[in-house]
């Protein structure tokens, strides 16, 4: 055995690592796949229609995903803990009806907004409590609260669309110029929330705990993490985020719509999964989810710009969604 072999495995690996560390780190990022899929989709539509790659249109895509994108932030955190939230669209809808009705009824708009978000947070807290305290499966709990929120929305709104909203409520739907493109404030709010979510999940203890609980709840518990408190917090914060999504929706449509959000639960889960987050918890990045949400938005927008008939849009969306996650899978395998 020659002398050179005396360097331990540690040292050997350390050497190789430092050499190719940057490359690897990049390739290992769970967001590469979703990003690649997003860029491919953009490339495809840029080549298919020259209206796609304009500042105005890209800003529009972001604006269109702001509701589902924001919901997906809360959904991501819940799914990272190995949970699921079917109630998010319904809770959001109830929140918008609460804030718009109260505001139209004369309550100062900021207070109405706070109450609307608060109602959503309360739904989240209810979900979290049932999931942890009564140890019920998240799927059923949130299916139950979905029905409850849906019913309350229709009862409280008396099924009427609420119009004539004060300016404050629709402020986030306004735009400001960025270069020669108009950008909605709401888009900025969504992007900011993704950044905050990314920061918390990636750089704080609470974030690590979210991953740990989803990865191996027993290990998290044995490590002294209060899994119950964590889960209740997660669902409650997610609820509050849905409230913010509701505010963005009100900004965009300028009405309180009791029919809103009915397919948002599946849409937000789709963004999460397309973003590379595992439905089994503990794995994935929230930045991937932003790309996931944008993928869906880009597909819808691009097909529309290409003038594809609406039923064929559905067909092609089905195919493209599978392709997108296929690209992600390819990216993952390359680094395995």
């Amino acid at each position: 055995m020659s002398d050179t072999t005396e360097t331990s495995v540690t040292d050997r690996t350390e050497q190789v690592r430092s050499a190719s560390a940057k490359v690897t780190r990049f390739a290992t990022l769970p967001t590469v796949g979703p990003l690649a899929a997003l860029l491919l989709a953009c490339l495809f539509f840029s080549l298919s229609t020259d209206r796609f790659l304009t500042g105005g249109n890209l800003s529009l895509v972001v604006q269109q995903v702001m509701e589902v994108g924001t919901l997906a932030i809360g959904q991501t955190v819940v799914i990272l803990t190995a949970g699921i939230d079917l109630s998010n669209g319904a809770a959001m809808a109830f929140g918008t009806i609460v804030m718009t009705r109260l505001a139209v009824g004369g309550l100062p708009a900021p207070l109405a907004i706070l109450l609307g978000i608060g109602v959503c947070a309360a739904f989240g807290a209810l979900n979290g409590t049932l999931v942890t305290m009564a140890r019920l499966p998240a799927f059923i709990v949130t299916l139950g609260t979905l029905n409850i929120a849906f019913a309350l929305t229709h009862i409280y709104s008396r099924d009427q669309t609420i119009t004539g909203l004060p300016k404050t409520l629709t402020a986030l739907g306004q735009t400001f110029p960025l270069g020669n493109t108009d950008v909605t404030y709401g888009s900025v709010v969504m992007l900011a929330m993704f950044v905050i979510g990314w920061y918390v999940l990636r750089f704080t203890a609470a974030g690590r705990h979210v991953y740990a609980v989803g990865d191996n709840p027993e290990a998290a518990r044995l490590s002294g993490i209060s899994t119950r408190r964590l889960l209740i917090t997660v669902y409650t914060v997610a609820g509050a985020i849905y409230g913010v999504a509701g505010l963005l929706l009100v900004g965009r449509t300028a009405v309180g719509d009791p029919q809103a959000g009915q397919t948002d639960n599946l849409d937000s889960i789709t963004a999460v999964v397309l973003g590379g987050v595992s439905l089994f918890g503990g794995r994935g990045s929230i930045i991937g989810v932003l790309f996931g949400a944008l993928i869906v938005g880009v597909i819808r927008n691009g097909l529309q710009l290409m003038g594809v008939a609406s039923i064929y849009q559905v067909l092609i969306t089905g195919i493209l969604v599978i392709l997108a996650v296929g690209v992600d899978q390819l990216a993952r395998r390359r680094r395995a």
Partner: protein
Amino acid sequence: MNPVLEAHGLVKRYGHVTALAGVDLELLPGEILAVIGDNGAGKSSLIKALSGALIPDEGRILLDGRPVHFHNPADARRAGIETVYQDLAVAPALDIASNLFLGRELRRKDLVGRVFRMLDAKRMQAEASSHMRDLKIGIGSMSQAVETLSGGQRQGVAVARSAAFARHVVIMDEPTAALGVKETGMVLDLIRGVRERGLPVILISHDIPTVFDVADRVHIQRLGRRVAVVEPGDVDMAEAVAIMTGAARGNEPGPA
């Protein structure tokens, strides 16, 4: 000398399997107490009760002479008890440093740390590296996911964690089962080091020679009860094994 940690008459039943049938335990200050027993004797159940991972159906636990009621592992951890579980209790998708510091992450000391609670990833990586180096377990990077480690490397992570953070009592459930000769030696050194720091250690192991080498006293368990406590000087290994398997009678009232 008053025991640091005591258990009296702990009982734990799973359906009709009785894992603990009224077991007692005393851990004296600064000692290494080995717990030996056949598979299924209730060793893991016993230490799970001591570390709050399991709530016994009956019995009392005393820490420094005062009764304690651990409702969860966090309670025991707060009391300074660190535990290596037999099934390791690691989060496979998280990296080594995150696993080591899970539940007691280090925050940055600057403004960002205080106001925005930002973790001190660098310091955790560095400290993790140094703890793991102590064990000479040969792992490349602290940012490697635990699921990519070999069986022994994984065990090294769990052992390093308990030794690094214990303030009162260290409990290790078969910490060397997956370890090689060299690595086992390191862990035993580490256990002695913990004793040197004045902390008592409970060590569960099937490796009788090692147990007799390192332990001050040996608690022998059988069918969910303590059947004997012996000192390695007084009793030879064969005798201990005989008691353990029921071939010889221990110095305690055995299972009725």
